[in-house]
C-alpha cells in the first residue's frame, strides 16, 4: 500500500466539491482547520495499490491575505506539501481561473489542471486548445465534466503518475521589470530555509504581503528594507501600487494564454442569459424573488405539516408501547423524557428542516441564491451587511444553528457578529410550527403573515442599531455572477446533509438533555414554583395565562416544546378554549423573539464567545417581553 496526498484547489463554484464527492464518495469527514472556524473537508480514495488522501481546499480567487481561507490554503500547500495539487478550473471562465492557477504554480508543487465544465464550453461555442494550454502552463491539463463523472478517472491516474515521478514546475515569466526584482530578491533569500519556495516568497514580498513580511522579519529583517527599495522602483515605473503591479502582470499572462488558446464561436446557450436578465431585473426580479420565497415556505410547511403528523402519531404509538413495558413510574417517566427529545428532533428534521435545506440547496447550486444576494444587497447595506449575508438569514428559517455557522462567509468579524445577531431573530421551523398551530389555525393567515412582516421590520431595526453600535464601513459586494446551470443532485443532497448534521451534532444532544431536565422539573413540581415567580411578567405585563410561564421557559430547550407544554398545562389541544386570539398573537410574538433556543446559544458561543452570546440572549429575552407587552396593550386598546 502506498500513501499519496492530493489537494483540490480552485475558485469558488468551479465544481471542485463535485469532483471531491466523486473521488471520495462516502469516505469523507468534515472538520475544522486547526484553530480556525473554516471547514476542512478531507476524504480517502482507495485506488489499486494506493490509499489517496484528498483535501478539498476552500474555493478562493487568490493566494493573498484577503481571507483566512486564502491563508490556510497557501500554508497548507507550502507546509504540508501534498504530493499533487489538482487545480480545478472552469473552462467557461478561463481568465480569472488561470490567475489563480498561476499563483498555485508559484508554490511549486506537482500539479495537474482539471479543465471542468467542458460540456458547457461546447454549448457556449467556446473552443479551448488544451495542448497549447499545457505548453503555456507546463503542467498536464485534462478535460473533465464533473457533473457526469467524465474524465475523473484519467485525472486520478495522472495525479498518481505525477506523485510517483515528480514534476519540475516551469517558471512563468511576469515581464522584464518584475522578473528582475524577483531575481534579485531570490538571491538575497538564498541563505534562509523557510517552508515556502524562494520565488513565491520573493513575489509575495514585492506584493507587500504582511504575513510573509512577518515571517521574513524574524529570520532576516534586512530583506524587508531591500524589498521596499525594489517595490518603490516598480511602483514608480508602473504608476500603481506594488500589489496591483504584480496582479496586473499575472493577469497579463492569463490574458495572453486565453487569447492564444480560446476561440469563441457562436453561442447556442441563450436561455440561461435570458433567465439571468429576468431574475435580476429591477422590478420583475423582486417580484419573482418574493413569489419564490413565499412558495418555498408554502410548500415546505404544507408538506411538513402532513408528514410530521404521521411521525407524531408513530411517536405516540411508541409511547404506548414504552409504557406497556416500563410502566409510568418516575424513573421510566424520566427515561421517556430522553426518548421524547430524540423523537421530537426527528419530527422536526425530517419533515421541515431537511426539505427546506434541500430546496434551498437546489436554488443555491443553480445560481439563484446569488441572484437574491444581488437583489438584496442595497437593503442589507442598511444594516451594515452586504447581499451575501442574506444566505445565512435564509438558513435561519430552517434552523438557527446552521444559520449562525453559515455567517462565517462574512468577510470581517464585525459583519459576522451583526449577521449572527440578526439570524437568531429569524423564526426557525419550530417557531413557525407554533405560529401556524396557534395563530394560523385559530386566528387566521393574515395574522401569520403580519407576524412575519413584523419580524422582518424588527430584524431591520435591530440590525440598524447593531450597525450603529459596531460602526464601520460595510465590505462592498464583489461577487461573481455565474451562468445558471442545472443543479447537481448529489451535491445538493450532500450540502443539505452537512447543514442538517450541524443541527444533529449541536442541537440534538442539547435537546435530549434539556428534555430530561424538563421532566425532572415536572416531576419535582419545581415548574409550579417557576410559574408563580413569572406571574408578574406573564399575567400582568403580557396578559397571558399563568401556565404560559412554564411553556415559555421550556421553549428554551426547543421552541416547539412550548406548544406541547401549553397543551399539557392547559389540559387540551384545542387552544381556542384556553387562549384568546390576542393571547395567541402575543404568545407567538414572544416565542418568535424571546431567546435563541439552547442549541442556538451553543452555536452563538462557538462563533462569538461566551460574553457576546450571553449578551445577545439576555437582550433578546428583555426585548421580546417588552415587545410582547406593547403588542398586548395595542391589541386590547
Amino acid at each position, binding site marked *: 500500500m502506498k500513501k499519496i496526498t492530493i489537494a483540490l484547489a480552485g475558485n469558488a463554484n468551479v465544481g471542485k466539491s463535485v469532483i471531491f464527492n466523486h473521488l471520495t464518495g462516502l469516505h469523507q469527514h468534515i472538520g475544522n482547520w486547526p484553530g480556525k472556524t473554516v471547514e476542512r473537508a478531507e476524504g480517502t480514495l482507495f485506488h489499486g495499490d494506493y490509499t489517496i488522501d484528498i483535501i478539498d481546499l476552500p474555493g478562493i*480567487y*487568490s493566494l*493573498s491575505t*484577503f481571507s483566512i481561507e486564502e491563508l490556510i490554503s497557501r500554508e497548507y500547500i507550502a507546509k504540508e506539501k501534498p504530493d499533487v495539487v489538482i487545480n480545478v478550473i472552469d473552462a*467557461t*471562465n*478561463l*481568465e*480569472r481561473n488561470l*490567475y489563480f492557477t498561476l499563483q498555485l504554480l508559484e508554490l511549486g508543487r506537482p500539479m495537474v489542471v482539471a479543465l471542468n465544465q467542458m460540456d458547457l464550453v461546447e454549448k457556449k461555442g467556446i473552443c479551448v486548445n488544451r495542448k497549447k494550454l499545457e505548453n503555456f502552463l507546463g503542467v498536464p491539463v485534462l478535460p473533465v465534466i464533473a457533473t457526469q463523472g467524465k474524465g475523473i478517472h484519467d485525472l486520478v491516474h495522472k495525479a498518481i503518475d505525477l506523485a510517483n515521478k515528480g514534476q519540475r514546475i516551469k517558471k512563468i515569466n511576469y515581464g522584464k521589470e518584475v522578473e528582475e526584482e524577483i531575481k534579485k530578491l531570490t538571491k538575497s533569500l538564498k541563505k534562509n530555509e523557510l517552508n515556502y519556495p524562494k520565488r513565491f516568497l520573493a513575489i509575495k514580498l514585492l506584493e507587500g504581503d504582511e504575513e510573509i513580511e512577518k515571517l521574513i522579519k524574524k529570520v532576516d529583517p534586512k530583506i524587508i528594507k531591500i524589498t521596499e527599495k525594489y517595490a518603490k522602483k516598480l511602483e514608480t515605473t508602473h504608476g*500603481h*501600487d506594488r*500589489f*496591483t503591479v504584480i*496582479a*496586473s502582470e499575472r*493577469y497579463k499572462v492569463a*490574458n495572453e494564454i*486565453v487569447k492564444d488558446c480560446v476561440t469563441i464561436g457562436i453561442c447556442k446557450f441563450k436561455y440561461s442569459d435570458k433567465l439571468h436578465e429576468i431574475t*435580476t*431585473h*429591477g422590478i420583475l*426580479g*423582486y417580484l419573482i424573488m418574493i413569489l419564490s420565497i413565499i412558495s418555498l415556505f408554502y410548500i415546505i410547511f404544507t408538506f411538513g405539516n402532513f408528514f410530521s403528523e404521521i411521525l407524531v402519531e408513530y411517536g405516540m404509538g411508541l409511547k404506548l408501547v414504552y409504557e406497556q413495558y416500563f410502566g409510568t413510574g418516575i424513573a421510566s417517566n424520566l427515561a421517556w423524557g430522553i426518548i421524547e427529545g430524540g423523537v421530537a428532533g426527528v419530527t422536526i428534521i425530517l419533515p421541515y428542516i431537511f426539505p427546506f435545506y434541500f430546496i434551498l440547496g437546489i436554488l443555491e447550486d443553480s445560481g439563484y441564491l*446569488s441572484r437574491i*444576494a*444581488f*437583489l438584496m*444587497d*442595497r*437593503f442589507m*447595506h442598511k444594516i451594515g451587511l*452586504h*447581499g451575501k449575508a442574506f444566505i445565512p438569514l435564509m438558513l435561519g428559517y430552517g434552523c438557527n444553528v446552521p444559520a449562525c455557522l453559515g455567517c462565517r462567509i462574512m468577510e470581517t468579524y464585525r459583519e459576522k457578529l451583526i449577521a449572527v445577531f440578526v439570524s437568531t431573530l429569524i423564526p426557525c421551523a419550530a417557531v413557525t410550527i407554533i405560529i401556524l398551530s396557534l395563530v394560523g389555525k385559530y386566528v387566521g393567515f393574515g395574522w401569520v403573515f403580519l407576524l412575519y412582516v413584523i419580524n422582518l421590520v424588527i430584524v431591520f431595526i435591530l440590525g440598524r442599531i447593531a450597525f450603529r453600535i459596531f460602526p464601520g*464601513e*460595510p*465590505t*462592498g*459586494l*464583489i*461577487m*461573481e*455572477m*455565474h451562468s445558471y446551470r442545472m443543479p447537481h443532485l448529489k451535491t445538493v443532497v450532500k450540502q443539505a446533509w452537512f447543514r442538517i448534521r450541524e443541527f444533529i451534532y449541536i442541537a440534538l444532544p442539547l435537546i435530549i438533555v434539556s428534555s430530561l431536565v424538563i421532566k425532572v422539573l415536572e416531576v419535582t413540581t419545581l415548574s409550579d414554583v417557576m410559574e408563580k415567580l413569572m406571574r408578574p411578567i406573564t399575567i400582568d405585563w403580557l396578559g397571558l395565562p399563568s401556565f404560559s410561564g412554564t411553556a415559555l421557559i421550556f421553549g428554551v430547550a426547543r421552541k416547539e416544546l412550548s406548544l406541547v407544554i401549553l397543551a399539557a398545562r392547559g389540559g387540551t389541544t384545542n387552544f381556542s378554549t384556553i387562549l384568546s386570539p390576542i393571547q395567541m398573537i402575543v404568545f407567538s410574538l414572544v416565542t418568535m423573539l424571546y431567546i435563541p433556543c439552547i442549541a442556538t446559544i451553543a452555536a452563538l458561543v462557538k462563533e462569538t464567545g461566551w460574553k457576546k452570546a450571553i449578551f445577545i440572549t439576555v437582550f433578546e429575552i428583555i426585548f421580546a417581553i417588552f415587545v410582547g407587552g406593547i403588542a398586548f396593550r395595542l391589541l386590547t386598546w
Partner: protein
Amino acid sequence: MPEKSMKLIDLKEGQKGIISSIAGGRRVTQRLTDMGLTPGTEVKMVRKGRLCPVEISVRGSNLALGYGVARKILVKVKE
C-alpha cells in the same frame, strides 16, 4: 479621440470604459485586482438598477459590485 475620466458607477448600461485606477483601501483594491479589475482592463456596464448593485462584464465573465465599490473605480471613456 479625447478621453474622459469618470467613475465606473457613472457608466451607462452597455457603455464600455478602461480602468485607470482604484481609489480605495488596500483590502478593496486587492480584492478587485484579484478579481481581474486591473488598470488597463476594459469593463462594460451590463446592468444598473435603482435598487440593486451594478453588474459589469470584465475578462469574459460578469461581476456584481456594490454601489460603494463601483464608486471607487475610475475609468476612462472615449468620447
